């Protein structure tokens, strides 16, 4: 079966760096028209350049996923410029790590707002078009932390596990319209987000990875591309773990 995405329009949030960037480029390489979002003009310009350099169709756009009005406007603009969105990749995410005893309400709220609430908001906004098309793929980037837990990440783990539960509910709700909803749960991937960890923490984590190395963003992008492709037509409500054997369920 085919992995080709010709004629599809994909929206990837948080696409200027790391996993989101790799996902945007991979979907573009497979033929999709890709809109990648970033929170800054510079980020959006970078996405646009990366897509163009790779010979992919699409654009970079500015979006703060926590702003309802901005999300609605962006979806409208994408549909006007490129057509109905058939693939949504909810990738944008933040961390505000702190021990639970020290975690402030703002740290909790910021992570829940960006990593959980915004995923629902954007999913809801693209549903209408997908229902009409009787076709759609929603792919949420979660984390190994949602299953395995991690000290200092109560907020992040809660948000990501929340997304996984929401994914299963949406998969049931939208299945009759041929819309699949799945998660990809990266393990320890070499990105700016994980580079921010102290070295001792990195070393401890590496010891737990069966494959003995960090993952590459492209290895997550490959899993996302599979779920977006016709080859994954019968996969819904699941979480695809891509973690080098760091966590096995």
């Amino acid at each position: 079966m085919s992995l080709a995405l010709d004629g599809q329009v994909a929206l990837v949030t948080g696409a200027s760096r790391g996993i989101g960037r790799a996902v945007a480029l991979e979907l573009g390489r497979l033929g999709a028209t890709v809109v990648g979002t970033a929170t800054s003009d510079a980020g959006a310009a970078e996405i646009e350049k990366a897509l163009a350099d790779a010979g992919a169709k699409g654009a970079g756009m500015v979006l703060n996923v926590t702003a309802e009005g901005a999300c609605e406007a962006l979806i409208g603009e994408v549909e006007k410029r490129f057509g109905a969105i058939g693939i949504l990749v909810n990738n944008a995410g933040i961390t505000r790590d702190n021990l639970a005893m020290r975690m402030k309400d703002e740290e909790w709220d910021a992570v829940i707002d960006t990593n959980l609430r915004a995923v629902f908001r954007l999913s809801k906004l693209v549903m209408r078009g997908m229902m009409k098309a009787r076709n759609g793929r929603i792919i949420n980037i979660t984390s190994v932390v949602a299953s395995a837990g991690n000290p200092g990440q109560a907020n992040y783990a809660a948000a990501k596990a929340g997304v996984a539960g929401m994914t299963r509910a949406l998969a049931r709700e939208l299945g009759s319209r041929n819309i699949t909803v799945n998660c990809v749960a990266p393990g320890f991937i070499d990105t700016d987000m994980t580079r921010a960890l102290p070295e001792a923490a990195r070393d401890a984590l590496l010891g737990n990875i069966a494959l003995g190395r960090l993952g590459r963003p492209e290895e997550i992008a490959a899993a996302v591309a599979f779920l977006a492709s016709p080859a994954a037509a019968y996969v819904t409500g699941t979480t695809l773990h891509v973690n080098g054997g760091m966590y096995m369920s």
Partner: protein
Amino acid sequence: MENIEQRVKKIVAEQLGVNESEIKIESSFVDDLGADSLDTVELVMALEEEFECEIPDEEAEKITTVQQAVDYVNAHLKK
């Protein structure tokens, strides 16, 4: 020009995959025409498109029969 009732019935027939002749003005989408909850949401979407309007969620929830749809359109929309 078809009247509102005919246009509504036509959309209901298309959305729910039923024969237009089976649709009566008093038909309930769920109880008589076999719609599930997602079908009713889609039906409202289709009505919004046909009559070029936005039906707020709290109003949409009250539209459960053909009659109610026709009444809503007559009361709120430019024809």
